[in-house]
């Protein structure tokens, strides 16, 4: 059985990332889309931590911390927007969030 190299983690995170992308592109529920974004961020984090492990240096984890911070902020604001929108239009369907167009 081959040893676990960073390539494995790369493939893993890539797959997770792509799954998040698919979620973003396919689902119409805004909340799910946000969650997919969280998935993508996690993929990134996996990469960071994996390379931190690979290089025996925690800088990657530090970056991961920042990523988590960003994720938290994004979640808070995004969900606030969703709530506000929901109060006005009684929907979370992204296909109905198409006011900003010609």
């Amino acid at each position: 059985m081959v040893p676990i190299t960073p390539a494995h983690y790369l493939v893993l995170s890539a797959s997770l990332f792509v799954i998040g992308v698919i979620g973003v592109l396919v689902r119409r529920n805004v909340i799910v889309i946000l969650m997919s974004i969280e998935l993508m961020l996690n993929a990134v984090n996996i990469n960071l931590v994996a390379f931190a492990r690979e290089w025996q240096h925690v800088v990657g984890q530090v970056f991961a911390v920042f990523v988590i911070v960003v994720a938290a902020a994004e979640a808070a604001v995004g969900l606030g927007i969703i709530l506000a929108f929901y109060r006005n239009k009684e929907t979370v369907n992204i296909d109905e969030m198409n006011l900003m167009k010609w």
Partner: protein
Amino acid sequence: MGEAIAFYSLAAFILGFAVLVITARNTVHSVLFLVVNFLFVAALYVMLHAEFMAVIQVFVYAGGIVVLYLFVVMLVNLKRPPEVHADPRRRGRLGLVVSGLLLAQLVAIAAYSTTQAAAGPASRALAPSPPVSGNVEQVGWLLYTHYLVPFEVASMLLLVAMIGAIILAKREL
């Protein structure tokens, strides 16, 4: 050996739950799957000897953010299901295809990169290596010395996000 088993099983769980997250009809279920997914990611971190990251993952993601999701879902989801009204102009399938292509490309890159010699040592000079031992100590040392300014900026970002969320979510100010 054991590492391989752990990795493959964890990877399988992570990807499986991720797929469940984006495929579950019920939003609450997908939120739950997300939590489980995060927990497995945390386990992966533990396997990578990043205990701090693991705990933070659980604490912040599972314990904070996702709870927020759950609240929003409960506040929002009690009305009609959101899946009605699909806009025909949306290119869902094309998205799938492109995503697949992207995955293939990324995997290709990863496979290609393994054949190359790791450019590690050069990059290791990015940041000073902490003089302390222990995961948490090292992370903290870096955060409060070399990455102090980004740290403060991050705190500012959080503050701003908090205020913005309050403004947005509050019905009347």
